[in-house]
């Protein structure tokens, strides 16, 4: 089959690889009908994710048709149309039973690496680093789905691939980011980053009743889309984020802050960002946490910082005094996708939201390597790339 494979920094190739096979009776094989490039894919594309190996099949946003099912899988049948959440979960361990699906204790088959890196292992992830299991990803014609009787979401007729594809990651990620803010009707929610997760966080905050949603970015078309979703926008290239947020909240600061940017903050307007760049280049800091610092500083006392943006390792000069003295709550983590999928699928079916609004480019899988660059460089108005193998 054909797949997109990682071979190093800025080196994604469209290659022929062996077809996947059933390895466990709970597995299923999916014929991919639709997959996408996620913002977090750019972290390994840019060389910031440790534990990648040359030849790894990448991608964790995908859906398709079930073509083969393991003997013990009673949930799926050949021909079912499913969206596959990016976090692999067993459904049986203590964390899965608690609903903490993204920290499943059993699915990271390279648990030792996870333990070493993070203190305790997290769930296995498709198409990402070997620290999270090194599972083959979904930017491929076929995918082996482990524990396929747990997380995959069966899609009813009447909904298009484009409407439901993002149930596997970015819609639940944006939703969880907003939901864990415990939004109140008088809240101002500030969202840093108007990429795909930021766009869903904005709409989720609106749907969850925030009085005011503010989005911070510097890419005009992304800010356009954020405004369309109901946000007031701040272009950090031309406005002071702190001053504007103070102005919009009568000097109180946003009640809830969402970091939909993560480890590769691109702001270069502040000294801390410059220092992060230099430190990252000489490998004494792994992530660039400008957004985290700004959120901690500007957030209203007793507020919530929600962090769906991916961080990988070490961050420096974090103003934790502000967090402690203002009594801020930090909520973060990979998305517990399965916690939200049934509800969000129903909201899509009910017509409350059509997630396809975020798709700006649809291409064949063979064009994936070029589209990584287009997406990374935000060229051609690119916000979300969908690929059809």
């Amino acid at each position: 089959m054909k797949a997109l494979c990682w071979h190093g920094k800025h080196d994604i190739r469209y290659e022929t690889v062996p077809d996947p096979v059933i390895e466990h009776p709970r597995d299923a094989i999916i014929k991919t009908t639709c997959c996408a490039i996620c913002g977090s894919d750019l972290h390994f594309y840019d060389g910031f994710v440790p534990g990648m190996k040359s030849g790894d099949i990448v991608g964790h946003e995908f859906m398709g048709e079930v073509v083969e099912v393991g003997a013990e899988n009673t949930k799926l049948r050949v021909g079912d149309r499913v969206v596959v959440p990016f976090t692999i979960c067993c459904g049986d361990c203590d964390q899965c039973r608690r609903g903490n699906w993204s920290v499943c204790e059993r699915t990271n088959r390279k648990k030792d690496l996870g333990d070493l890196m993070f203190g305790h292992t997290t769930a296995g992830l498709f198409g990402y680093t070997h620290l999270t299991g090194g599972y083959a990803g979904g930017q491929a014609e076929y995918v082996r789905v482990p524990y396929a009787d747990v997380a995959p979401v069966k899609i009813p007729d009447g909904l298009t691939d484009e409407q439901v594809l993002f149930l596997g990651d970015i819609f639940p990620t944006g939703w969880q980011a907003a939901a864990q803010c415990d939004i109140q009707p008088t809240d101002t929610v500030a969202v840093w980053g108007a990429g795909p997760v930021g766009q869903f966080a904005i709409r989720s905050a609106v749907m969850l009743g925030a009085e005011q949603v503010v989005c911070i970015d510097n890419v005009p078309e992304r800010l356009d889309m954020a405004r369309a979703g109901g946000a007031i926008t701040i272009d950090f290239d031309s406005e002071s984020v702190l001053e504007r947020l103070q102005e919009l909240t009568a000097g109180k600061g946003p009640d809830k802050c969402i970091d939909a940017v993560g480890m590769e903050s691109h702001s270069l307007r502040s000294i801390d960002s410059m220092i992060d760049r230099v430190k990252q280049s000489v490998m004494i800091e792994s992530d660039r946490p400008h957004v985290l610092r700004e959120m901690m500083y500007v957030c209203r006392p007793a507020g919530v910082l929600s962090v769906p943006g991916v961080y990988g390792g070490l961050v420096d000069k974090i103003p934790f005094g502000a967090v402690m003295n203002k009594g801020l709550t930090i909520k973060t983590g990979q998305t517990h996708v399965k916690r939200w999928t049934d509800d969000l699928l129903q909201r899509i079916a009910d017509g409350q939201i059509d997630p396809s609004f975020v798709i700006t480019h649809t291409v064949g899988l063979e064009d994936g390597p070029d589209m990584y660059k287009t997406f990374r460089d935000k060229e051609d108005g690119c916000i979300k790339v969908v690929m059809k193998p």
Partner: protein
Amino acid sequence: MNTVTTLHPMSRALPSRPLGPMRSPARALGWFSIGLGLAELAMPRTVARAAAMPNLPRLTRAYGLREIGTGIGILTSKDPSPWLWGRVAGDALDIATVGAGIFSQRRPARTLASIAMLLGVAYLDLKVAEGAPPAKKMAKRSLRDYSARSGFPKSAAEMRGVALRPSERLTSTVEPRQGFG
């Protein structure tokens, strides 16, 4: 690229954003400036020796601060062109400093080689500075119009709090709640 790019039907193409062809080289020069500046601050004697400059550590460190300032200016300002022209001026100063020592240095060939290298850098700086459009030409515009892409069936104001209300069915694409999963 053999791309069959399908844009969303709600997209309307607008003229390209005039980022300027010299944006990336300018950024590279910004980082080069900072790197060189740090080296001049940390190892003034070594840098002076390598560049055939007079062995004056305070002067070399001052030049290092100049380089760092210029680099930060290029990377952080909305309009990098004045900073790029600042680099060109700095190159002239560097060439004058190295050139002044040509008769006092024991190895004039090395001094000449250094001047030739500085002239090369100055030429590069000049080309990038000439190619960098001034700020008003770099004003950002959307590449595409996404202002109709709300994803909502009604206005955002009408959708506020929809998730808090009991099941609200706004279209009839599929059968309601039962049967999924």
